[in-house]
Structures are given as structure tokens and as C-alpha cells.
């Protein structure tokens, strides 16, 4: 490792000289993916996958520790800070586009493929020749009525139950993190710590409510990944979102721990802001989900 452990000076754009983490990360991702592929193909069990995940964790911890350490030494000047910010913004944009693919699938299914299978417009022959007994509508598990139940039925999770509660939770967490941010900028670390903790607690609360909803759907509602296009879009969208909330909440926890260790100053706190932006992104995606997946 040839990290430079230079004394604090930030008149120049800091350039690291050599780093072990990316190659470790590459090996980790390779191992993880090879492990999943092997597992899916039933070549061997999840051992390799788990090893990959462990390596991945090592990489993340090591990489972030290095960066946080450098940051605490003060080697990052404002230009570096701006690079980090821009990087984070464009990373979040790429995440938005990732979700866009799944939203696109949802809209396509709802407005085009399902009505077409039902014989709408120029696609009338679909109904006459292939799917006589299918009447298009939403939600649907398709003309073959896919899903766990023998009679092909399933129920959806109503918007104004737990999902509405979850909306309230995520929205409040958006408020709490903003309060924390203002407190940080005002130098009020007591409020900062409390509201930051509240934020990730709300995040984890969201995830556990979501998990219980999943349990409900899987056990009692006949709603699973395999429940036709509704189940597919539902679980894909909410699942990836849930994953992002989990990651966001973990990141919030980490910056909370850093706050407890006295990190971040009223003017310099990129780590905090990056996580806050990420959290807002997760929040906005949820609003989209709530409206288009649960509600209308």
C-alpha cells in the first residue's frame, strides 16, 4: 500500500498515490457475482457468494476509513469537496435512471401490454385467438393467472394502510434529517445527534414495516414475485427501493457514529450531505411508488 500519509495541507488538489481498495473491490464483486451465478446454476452453494460479500465489506470499510482519515487530516480542499459533491449527484442521477427502467416497465405494462393482451385497438386479434378469457384491467396477474393460489386470485396491499404510514414515516425522516442538517450548520451538535438518530430509526422502522407487509403479501394475499406482471413490478420496484432504504439507513447510522466521534464541521460536511441527498432521493422514489404502485 502506498497511501500517502501526508501532513495536513490543502492548498493543492489532493491526489492519492496508489490505493489497494479498488482491486480488492473488483475481486470482491467478481467473487460475489460468480458466487450468485454458481448458486443459481446449482453448481455449488452460497459459500463463494458469502465470501464475496465479506470481501466487499472489507473493501467498503477500508476504502471509507482511508477517505475519512484523509478528510480528518484536512488534506481535502474545497475543490476536492466539490468533486465529491458532483460525483455524488451524478451517482444519484444514475440511480434515478435505474429506477426509471422499472417504472418504464410498469407504465408499459399498465398502459400498453396488458390492454393489448386484452385485445385493445389494433391488437384485437390477441383476444380472439390467444386470450379469449382475459379481460384487461389493473391489477392483473395476466391471462394465465400466475401466482401461488390454485384459483389464480390474489389481493393487493391497499395504499391507505401501512404504505400510507410508511409514506408518513419517510416524509418525517426527510424532515428530521433537514433539522439535523440545520443543527449541524448552526453548530448545535446536541440537536444534530438526536435528529440524525431519529432519521435512521425511522428508516429502519420503514424497512421493518415493509418487511412485515412482504410477509403478509407472501403468506396471506397470494401476492408474490411470481404473481404475474403485478407481482413482478410490485416487488421489483418496492424491493429495490427497500434495498436502497436499507443502504441509506446504514449510511445514516455510520454518519451518526461519525458525528458521535466529533466529525463534521458547520462548513465542511460532505459525508453528511451526501447521505442526506441520498436519503431525499430514496424519499422521492418512494413517493413515485406510493402514487403509481400502491395508489392509482
Amino acid at each position, binding site marked *: *500500500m*502506498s497511501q*500517502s500519509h501526508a501532513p495536513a*495541507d490543502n492548498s*493543492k*488538489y489532493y*491526489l*492519492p*498515490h*496508489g*490505493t*489497494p*481498495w479498488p*482491486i480488492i473491490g473488483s*475481486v470482491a*464483486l*467478481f467473487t460475489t*457475482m*460468480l458466487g*450468485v*451465478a454458481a448458486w*443459481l446454476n446449482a*453448481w455449488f452453494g452460497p459459500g463463494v457468494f458469502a465470501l464475496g460479500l465479506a470481501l466487499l465489506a472489507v473493501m467498503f470499510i477500508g*476504502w471509507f476509513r482511508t477517505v475519512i482519515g484523509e478528510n480528518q487530516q484536512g*488534506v481535502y480542499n474545497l*475543490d476536492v469537496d466539490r*468533486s465529491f459533491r*458532483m*460525483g455524488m449527484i*451524478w*451517482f444519484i*442521477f*444514475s440511480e*434515478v*435512471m*435505474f429506477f426509471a*427502467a422499472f417504472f*418504464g*416497465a410498469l407504465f408499459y*405494462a399498465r398502459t400498453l*401490454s396488458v390492454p393489448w*393482451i386484452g385485445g385493445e*385497438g*389494433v391488437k384485437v386479434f390477441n383476444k380472439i385467438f390467444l386470450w379469449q378469457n382475459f379481460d384487461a384491467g389493473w391489477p392483473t*396477474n*395476466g*391471462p*394465465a393467472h*400466475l401466482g401461488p393460489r390454485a384459483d389464480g386470485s390474489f389481493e393487493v396491499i391497499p395504499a391507505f394502510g401501512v404504505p400510507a404510514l410508511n409514506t408518513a414515516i419517510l416524509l418525517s425522516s426527510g424532515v428530521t434529517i433537514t433539522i439535523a442538517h440545520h443543527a449541524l450548520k448552526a453548530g448545535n451538535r446536541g440537536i444534530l445527534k438526536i435528529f440524525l438518530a431519529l432519521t435512521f430509526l425511522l428508516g429502519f422502522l420503514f424497512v421493518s414495516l415493509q418487511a412485515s407487509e412482504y410477509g403478509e403479501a407472501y403468506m396471506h394475499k397470494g401476492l*408474490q*414475485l*411470481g404473481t*404475474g*406482471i*403485478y*407481482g*413482478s*413490478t410490485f*416487488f*421489483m420496484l418496492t424491493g429495490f427501493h427497500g434495498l436502497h432504504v436499507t443502504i441509506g439507513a446504514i449510511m445514516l447510522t455510520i454518519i451518526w457514529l461519525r458525528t458521535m466521534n466529533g466529525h463534521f464541521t458547520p462548513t465542511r460536511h460532505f459525508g453528511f450531505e451526501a447521505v442526506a441527498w441520498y436519503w431525499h432521493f430514496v424519499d422521492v422514489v418512494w413517493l413515485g411508488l406510493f402514487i403509481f404502485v400502491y395508489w392509482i
Partner: protein
Amino acid sequence: MAYTEHAAHDHHDHKPSGMWRWLSTTNHKDIGTLYLIFSCVMFFVGGAMAMVIRLELFKPGMQFLDPAFYNSMTTVHALAMIFGAVMPAWVGLANWMIPMQVGAPDMALPRMNNFSFWLLPFAFTLLLLGFFVPGGAPAGGWTLYPPLVLQGGDSFPLAIFAIHLMGASSIMGAINVIVTIMNMRAPGMTLLRMPLFVWTWLITAYLLIAVMPVLAGAVTMLLTDHFFGTSFFSASGGGDPVMFQHVFWFFGHPEVYILILPAFGIVSEVIPTFSRKPLFGYEAMVYATASIAFLSFIVWAHHMFTVGMPLAGELFFMLSTMLIAIPTGVKVFYWSATMWRGSLSFEPPMLFALAFLFLFTIGGFSGLMLAIAPADFQYQDTYFVVAHFHYVLVPGSIFTIFAAVYYWMPKWTGHMYNMTLAKWHFWLSTIFVNVLFFPQHFLGLAGMPRRIPDYATQFADWNMVSSIGGFGFGVSQLLFPYIIYKCIRGGEKATAQVWEGAHGLEWELPSPAPYHTWEEAPTPAQIAHGAEH
């Protein structure tokens, strides 16, 4: 200044040696070199597969391959060329040149830079591993259409994950380019002073960030359809195989401009240099590039004219596709106008740029013909399409990569290369590439479908011609690594400016460019001198 002084004697031109240097490097020049070497290797891997394809197609009848293996060859050939050869070459060139051209000491996020490179060899290991697992390598075409792709064997998840890794790599590379350009320009290097290569890459980077995640989403849905019982692409569950095509081409069409926009940038550097005249219509070139990028988002379904879209959809995508001819045409005219009343000389970079100008335009014309939906009913999935996209990709993207390497190599190595051999490389490539791909227009029009390992006898003659062109082209490419190798090893010393007509910050630096450049920002005088576009 304690840190930099300390670094000056401790780290400055100190490069760790051996493997570890390359594994751990955060230097943009090292990483650029890694990318370029990787790209060259993948070009030969993908090219070797193309040779297998041309060998099987040399004459009618099945000579060597099982049809399924033939399909693997075309699929992996395309993936290797696009994701392994062309895209990494662009990122490699961006790494080398963008910091030097905008007066930055390095890329903005050097560690991530290393990460985005090292993911690639692992991604391709996953992909190529497919050849050794039950069921063989992916064989559903690079477009991965379901339901066919879902019939893949054990290589299916490997390929999906390989694509995820390639996507992650591209996204990180693109973020780095954007941040470097937006945040690391030397004072005085205003946006409209940036060389066009930097501009076209900036726009390319936005395209990458916008569409690579969409590809990741698309292949993720394939994965869950295959393994987890979702029905995104199956009508019985309410999905639609064509939905995949929409998502794929929403990525895929911008992708083809990702493969060509940096080429436009390089041509816009090379032609002025060897015309000894500033680029004609610099700003208009920037706007034309931006409009191409914008339009590329709304034309995707021209790849799907035969899927049975409603009339309104066909019309929309036909007309929007035709529009792209305008900004692209504008660029062609501006390049021509740059040569007009110039003082032209024909060194290897210029030769390749000129071949690009002629042959890309031919590829563009066939693209425009394909855009005419009713006519596309006859062209679609024939060798006419194969001819179209190889014209824009091989004498388009690949030739400009050659041009870029021949243009900047003296700056990288400090040596001039063997001009005579490079000119041989040019003439052989240019002649053979036409022998290889021009007859494919005839084959397509005469009715030969693409993606077939064997064909009716009336297609025999032109296929043989095409194969001969292919082998000739392939053998000629062996010159390229040889010339590079020789140039690295030695040769006539290059001057700082290298080419008489060259302008730009990179030419203000000595040749070879030192390991660290622009740690002290360029002076206003240097910038002004360089910015005489």
C-alpha cells in the same frame, strides 16, 4: 506547501514498480494505458471471433461450427467489440487526454478511476467463462432478446452479471469524466475554449450515466424472469417480450452514439491540425453534438419497426430518426469546410480521419435508408443492417481510435513511430474494410438474413469476397500493435508540438508527457495559445 514539497521528492515521479503499480495506480496516464491495452486485447479477441464468423461464412454449407456455437460467436463478438474494445478505448483516451487538455493535474476521483478500470477484466472473465460452462457461451445475440435469451444455459447469469459490472465501470468512468471537466479545468479554460474531444466526451458521459443504468435494469428483469418467476417479458403473466426491446433500445440507441461521439471529437482535433487551420464553426459543432445526443433519446424504436407497433409509433420513430441526419450532416459539412482553403498534409492520423469522413458518411446514408420504416421492412435483420453498422463502427469508431493513437502516441511515448508502416496500416485497412463490408450491402438487399451460419447458394460470391476482405483486414491489424510496440521501445525523438499545426494544452507539455502534468496550472498564455482551435 509542506505536503506537496514532501510529495515532490518522495512520490512525485516515483512509480511503484512491478504488478502492484498497475493494480493500485491512481495516475490518469497509467490508467489510460491500462484501458488502452485492455481495449486492444479485446479488439483482438472480438476480432478473432469475427474471423471465425467469416471463416464459417466463406462458402455455403456448414464447414466448421455447430450453429449454436456460431450464435455464441456473433453474440460475444459484438459484446467484446462494443463493451470491450470501443468503450474502453474511449475511456482510455479520456484518461490520458482530458486532464492534459483542460490543464488538470489528474482525473477528479483517482481511486474510483482505478476501480472503473479494474472491474472490466473481471467483467470479461465472467463473460468469457461462459464458453466453458454447460450450454456454452451466450448465443441470443448481443441484443439479448427474450424469450430466446432465457433459453440460455449456465452462462446466462454469468453474462448478466458481466453486463452489470461493465455498466458499473462505465458509470464510474463517466462520472469521473464529468467531474473532471466541470471541476478541474485550469483557470481561464472556459467551457467554450475546451477542445472538441473534451466536449464530445462530456456529452458522451451524460449519455452513459443516463442509459447504462437502464441497461442494468433491463438485464436484471431478464434475470428475475429466468430465475425468480417474474413475468416482465411473458404475455401469460401480463408482460410483453417487446417491452424488453423498448427498454433495451432506450439504452441501445444512445449507446451507438456513445460509440461515435468521442470519434467526432477526435476527428475535430485531427482535421484542423493537418489542415493547419482552426476548426470551422467550433460552437456550432458543440451544439450539433448536443442535439445528436438529445435526439438519440427519442428514436430508439427504429430498431423495432417490424415488431408490430401501432402506426403512430412507427411514424414518430421514423421521423425523429430522420432528424438526426441534420446535426450529423452539419458536422460533416463543418469538417469539409475546415479543409477548405487549408494547407493539408497526410500523416497517418489525418489519413484515418479522412477515411472516417468518407466511410462514416456512407454508413450514415445507409442508416438514413434504414430509418425509412416501410423500406426497413425489407432491410431489417439482413446484412444491409450489418453493413450499415460496421461502416459506422469500424471505419467510424475503430478508425478514429487508430487516428487518435497515431495522433497522440508521440506525446505519450516521446518517440515518433514508423510512419511508413502506419501508412501501410492505413491503406491496407481502408481497402480491406471496404472489400469486407461493402458487399454486405448487396447481400442484405438480395435477401440474406443476418445471424445465420449458412446461406443459400446465390449469396456465395459476395460472402466469399467479404470473407477475403475480412481476413485481409484482420491480418493488417497485426501491424498496429507492432507499430505501437516499436514506438514504445524507441524511435526518433518527438518534439513538444509534434505536429506542425497542432494546438491545445497537451502540446504545451514536453514529449513524453511527464508522469504528473499540470500540477502547476497552465499559464494564461499557454491557454490562449492552445485555444486557437
